[in-house]
């Protein structure tokens, strides 16, 4: 059986996670789209901490009957992996979209410059290239 102190601590931690996520949504610092997985994580962990017999049963199935709290760690780890994987896909998508915006902006700037040039020849503004990121051509492949 899980020590009571473990259950109480895990329940408090899960509850805190849920409350923090809700407050972040309310304060508009986290979008619902990215919050749902965290909320599910918090709820599952809360259920597993409160439902002590259930945790023992699952621990029995998975062969860790001697130490049921291991299931809490396993489930938490699993969810963290899922959230991270989800973020990786989101990041990849943002990467693609960022490229598209940069390309569209550059083409628009060229078009604006061309239209300006037709009227009063010569460049309008000399703009410093914003290389906050080192151009890939300069950095050697790792």
């Amino acid at each position, binding site marked *: 059986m899980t020590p009571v102190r473990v259950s109480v601590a895990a329940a408090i931690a899960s509850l805190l996670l849920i409350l923090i996520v*809700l407050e972040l*949504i*309310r304060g*508009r610092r986290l*979008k*619902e*789209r990215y*919050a*749902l997985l965290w*909320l599910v994580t918090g709820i599952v962990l809360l259920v597993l901490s409160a439902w002590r017999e259930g945790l023992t049963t699952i621990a029995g199935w998975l062969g860790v009957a001697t130490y049921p709290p291991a299931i809490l760690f396993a489930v938490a780890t699993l969810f963290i992996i899922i959230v991270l994987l989800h973020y990786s896909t989101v990041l990849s998508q943002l990467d*693609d*979209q960022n490229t*598209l*915006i940069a390309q*569209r902006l550059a083409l628009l700037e060229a078009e604006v410059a061309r239209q300006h040039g037709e009227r009063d020849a010569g460049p309008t503004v000399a703009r410093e290239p914003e290389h906050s990121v080192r151009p890939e051509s300069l950095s050697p492949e790792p």
Partner: protein
Amino acid sequence: MTAGRIVAIVPAYNEAGAIGGVVDAIRAANALFDVVVVDDGSYDETGVIARSRGAAVVTLPYNIGIGGTVQTGFKYALERGYETAVRLDGDGQHDPGELQKLLGPIERGEADIVTGSRFVEGSGDYRPPLARRIGIIWFARIVSLLTRQRVTDTTSGFQALNRKGIALFAGDYPSDYPEVEATVLVFKHRLRLVEVPVTMRERETGQSSITFVRSIYYVAKVTLALFMAMLRKYAIPQEEAAGS
């Protein structure tokens, strides 16, 4: 330049089969309508066709989803100085012939936002599939409860707005299933929402952007968003706050 003119905002994603007819029908319905099609990164000829029928076309560089697309239209309306806007979908399910009904309460100064409802008394006999109907009823109940106003159709994208409504949505508009959450936004900002009965046609071409598997996720997400929106504080326009 835009005095007296009304902008018709049409969000469209891969609607090449329907968009031409939609633009024609809007322009035929009322000579005061300027049509702007917001093309949400379609990979078919949607934008080209819309432009050839005389609509202004705003093309997004990639697919940003319905909420962002519609909001682009509201920003366009705000920047161009339109006093009144209507919004209808690019797939042909909203009949431009009914736009005048939506504009009525705006013109009489009775509402800031008018929604065409499929479920209020006097609307056509629209019967969506069961799963969709459950979702529609679920949101209608929650929104009515939260806003203490009877709202029957929270997912309708058939709307007319005055300048206040345009400004609100240009500044703040939700992403997925945006109309549901937007209804709560309207309430929180103390704008007046009125529903009028409309009949919606079956989709002509294209495919609904909502599939069954995703709908569970959307229902959870939007429900969460609704309650979160109720818990937020929103800036109320000065004269409104003073008057209430």
